[in-house]
């Protein structure tokens, strides 16, 4: 399709902004319905306990209270558990997970009862009057401890805390490791992370009792999946056709709103029982306990290499904490990284295993990056360890191990086909921008001088797997749903264009980027393109937004739908101009007769004649509208090179980031401004993971970091300006060449930062510090390495 590139690739300002900037947005708590009541959830203070009784009558007698229900009171509302859509192995242990606990609670914050009242305050007041008699049970909070015999069982009926073990092996692993002259063994722990979207979760169920229909408004990333999953698995006697789900403006997600949550199910049940609209808005401290968390993975990583550092084998064995239950995709999160532990290198042998384990903690699930930050951290930290071992510069070691540049699908050891890549180019660019050679000289000077403030340079040459993705591959991974997405383009008779997308943005700017794509394809102004999303009645087909998939799947669906529009318009234009289709040229929305360019029709003109239908070619349907459902043939593989430069105060352990350079390659770029914004935010979450954030539980399963006052979400004051650049290696997976960018920064940054810290103090003998790399941990590691003895374990 020959189209003028007027918007794509330009830093077009966002169409979303005006309402968000002026307070006119509609987030979930801004939406009300006539007759609306409020729900408040009573939650367990215990991490593990039998529920002896739930006394609801005194709460029920309080002012404004409409109903109080325990888990048992609500039991007949459910056909089954809250859904887990990713049973990763045939023998996976899948515990029962009721929206409201009935006999036993298994993590702090699990729902035990709900109160419905006229006002928010009345519901909360009454919730405090619900009296629950608990019988505390033994608690296990550590995944490795939970695997030991005699450990308390999270689910007694399963007779084990092991949910599954998933393995992947390629090449002669044992032989390669036995014969390799160099083997590097590393062990890493990825702390619990709490996603902290600034908008907490919330939802409102609105019933239409006479029709038996419900509208569920929810601050969700996945309106489509939510509708299907709730009606297919959880809510009893609610046909999918009777449920409409609307995701209004959503205030950030990062994976935490990629789920089917207890409160969404309970609101529907409560609305069905009372016949009234009912709203629930999560408080921040609830959010810390009842919204999914991320990471919490132990890794044993081994690299086999030649004497000079040529990578021969990678082994990664994981123990991953599932928490108390399996949420929507909990068990599958490690699998999203399982194929990437060899990174951008091509060893001869590869061995991955992950055991998923239950503990008495909030369930884990997708948090920005999901599996891929863990994989990238493992290989990129271990590559630095290998560089130290063989006495090579980490940049040189990486360069000698990179896959050579390629533009067509290329088999890698883990079984994937990488789409395209030029990894050396990205690293070269990042080293150039960061003035790497100069930094190394300065580092040496400071080392020689025994400077208190030492300089460290950390590299991360990451790759990720995005664009979920071929439905057949997802089937092979035992994921219950497909990986397609849908787009509809509707050319209205007035020249306006309506785009309906199955993606569900919550900050990513799809309304702008999708309008750029369609405006260019159809030769219309972006102002004439409206993008509709997030309402299952408006956009019936979709797989929603997560895993950096929206552009690489939903955006490409749009590309194909636009192609269908142009093809139909061409037929009509040829008919009207009384020439054959071959005699027409198409450019920037205009069909013109070759050799007679003044004989022409534009897409808006044809949209009008398709609407009047007065003079259409034979067998042509009126209207100019097309839908395309796109199921990609492969994943996409964004990659890049990040360089972090830190100063470490060797007396206090304080780390400050002096420079952060990111060179990313997400293939073709639709909107560079949006891409850069995604990278900024991603890097920040990665730096937070490296330096600040850690969800800590005590031995009784109490979450100690239970609010923003003691869980360190960084502010602007802790962060530097980042320097960004790009290379463009178009994806071979899709005709647009796009790859995805939403998670890149979060995946790349943690090893870049931690490698930099280690690099600053490695000459003192420090080889490892656990995340988050706090001043205390750095200080202890230095003390220990110096043999001062008083530092203790880092």
């Amino acid at each position, binding site marked *: 399709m020959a189209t003028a590139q007027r918007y794509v690739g330009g830093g077009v*300002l*966002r169409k*979303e*902004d*005006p309402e*968000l*900037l*002026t*307070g*006119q*947005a509609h*987030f979930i*708590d*801004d939406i009300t319905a006539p007759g609306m009541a409020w729900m408040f959830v009573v939650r367990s203070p215990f991490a593990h306990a039998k529920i002896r009784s739930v006394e609801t009558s005194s709460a029920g007698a309080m002012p404004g209270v409409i109903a109080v229900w325990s888990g048992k009171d609500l039991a007949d509302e459910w056909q089954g558990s809250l859904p887990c859509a990713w049973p990763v192995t045939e023998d996976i242990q899948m515990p029962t997970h009721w929206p409201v606990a009935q006999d036993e609670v298994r993590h702090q914050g699990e729902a035990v009862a709900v109160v419905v009242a006229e006002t*928010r*305050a009345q519901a909360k007041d009454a919730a405090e009057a619900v009296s629950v008699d608990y019988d505390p049970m033994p608690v296990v909070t550590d995944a490795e401890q939970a695997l030991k015999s005699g450990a308390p069982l999270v689910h007694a009926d399963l007779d084990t805390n092991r949910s599954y073990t998933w393995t992947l092996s390629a090449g002669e692993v044992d032989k390669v490791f036995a014969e390799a002259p160099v083997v590097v063994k590393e062990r890493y722990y990825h702390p619990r992370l709490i996603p*902290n*979207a*600034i*908008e*907490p979760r919330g939802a409102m169920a609105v019933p239409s009792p006479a029709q038996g229909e419900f509208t569920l408004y929810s601050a969700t990333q996945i309106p489509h999946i939510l509708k299907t999953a709730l009606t297919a698995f959880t809510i009893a006697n609610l046909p999918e056709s009777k449920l409409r789900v609307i995701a209004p*403006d*959503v*205030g*950030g997600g*990062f994976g935490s709103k990629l789920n089917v949550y207890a409160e969404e199910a309970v609101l529907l049940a409560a609305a069905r029982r009372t016949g009234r609209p009912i709203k629930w808005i999560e*408080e*921040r*401290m609830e959010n810390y306990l009842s919204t999914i968390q991320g990471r919490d993975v132990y890794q044993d990583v081994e690299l086999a290499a030649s004497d000079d550092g040529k990578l021969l084998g990678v082994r990664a064995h994981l123990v991953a904490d599932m928490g108390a239950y399996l949420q929507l995709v909990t068990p599958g999160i490690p699998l999203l990284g399982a194929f990437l532990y060899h990174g951008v290198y091509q060893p001869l042998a590869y061995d991955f295993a992950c055991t998923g384990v239950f503990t008495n903690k909030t369930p884990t699930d997708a948090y920005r990056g999901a599996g891929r930050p863990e994989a990238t951290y493992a290989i990129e930290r271990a590559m630095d360890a290998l560089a130290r071992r063989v006495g090579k510069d980490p940049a040189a070691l990486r360069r000698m191990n990179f896959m050579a540049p390629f533009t067509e699908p290329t088999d890698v050891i883990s079984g994937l086909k990488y789409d395209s890549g030029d990894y050396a180019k990205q690293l070269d660019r990042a080293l150039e921008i960061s003035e790497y050679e100069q930094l190394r000289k300065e580092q040496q000077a400071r080392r020689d001088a025994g400077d208190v403030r030492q300089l460290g340079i950390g590299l991360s040459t990451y790759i990720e797997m995005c664009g979920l993705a071929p439905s057949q591959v997802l089937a092979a991974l035992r994921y219950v749903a497909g990986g397609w997405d849908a787009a509809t383009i509707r050319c209205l008779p007035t020249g306006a264009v309506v785009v309906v997308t199955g993606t569900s943005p*919550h*900050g*990513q*700017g799809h309304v702008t980027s999708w309008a750029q794509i369609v405006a260019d394809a159809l030769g219309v102004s972006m102002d004439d393109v409206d993008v509709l999303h997030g309402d299952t009645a408006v956009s019936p087909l979709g797989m929603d937004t997560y895993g950096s998939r929206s552009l690489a799947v939903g955006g490409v669906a749009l590309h194909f739908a636009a192609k269908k529009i142009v093809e139909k318009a061409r037929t009509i234009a040829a008919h009207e101009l009384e020439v054959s289709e071959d005699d027409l040229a198409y450019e920037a929305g205009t069909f013109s007769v070759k050799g007679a360019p003044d004989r022409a029709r534009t897409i808006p003109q044809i949209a009008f004649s398709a609407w009047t239908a007065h003079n259409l070619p034979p067998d042509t349907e009126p209207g100019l509208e097309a839908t395309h459902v796109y199921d990609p043939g492969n994943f996409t593989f964004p990659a890049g090179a990040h360089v972090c430069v830190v100063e470490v105060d060797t007396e206090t352990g304080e780390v400050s980031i002096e420079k952060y350079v990111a060179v990313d390659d997400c293939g073709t770029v639709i909107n560079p*401004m*949006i891409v*850069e*914004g995604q990278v*900024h*935010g*991603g*890097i*920040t*979450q990665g730096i937070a993971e490296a330096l600040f954030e850690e969800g800590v539980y005590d031995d009784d399963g109490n979450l100690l970091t239970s*609010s*923003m*006052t003691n869980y360190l*979400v960084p*502010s*602007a*004051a802790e*962060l530097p*300006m*980042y*320097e*960004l*650049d790009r290379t463009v290696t178009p994806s071979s997976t899709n005709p647009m060449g796009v790859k995805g960018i939403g998670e890149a*920064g979060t995946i790349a940054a943690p090893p870049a930062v931690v490698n930099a810290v280690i690099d600053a103090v490695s000459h003192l003998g420090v080889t490892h510090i656990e995340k988050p790399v706090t001043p205390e941990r750095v200080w202890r590691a230095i003390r220990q390495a110096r043999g001062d003895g008083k530092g203790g374990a880092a």
Partner: protein
Amino acid sequence: MTRVQVTVNGVEREADVEPRTLLVYFLRESLGLTGTNVGCDTSSCGACTVLIGGESVKSCTVLAAQADGREITTIEGMARDGEMHPLQEAFHRNHGLQCGYCTPGMIMAAASYLKENPSPTEEEVRMALEGNLCRCTGYQNIVTSILDAAGQPSGARA
């Protein structure tokens, strides 16, 4: 119930509220000004920042009754006669927002700060924003937006 009377965005408004009602819920639920968002209920995130008498406060930490008789500015009062406030324009121009949930609080905090310090450095803007959390932007474009609104050079090199 307590009667609270305030001038919000230049308009006199009043409503009866329970004495324990926080200012943010008074604005949102009694007066229907839903542009001010609640992010944490504990004055950590700053999403609920508004101006009282021109100074920024976290409206989840102030009782409605404490604001009685005061002048309040919310995000809805920043644009005048259909023209966005220079800070709103700068956030738009510099992609200073993604999901937009923290944005009203960021803009109100910045408006208050720029009155105190009309020509801040990048470092000063970062320190001034310490009480306002954003999870999307990594702050780079927020800081750049505020510097731009103040006519100050940005430290960003990309």
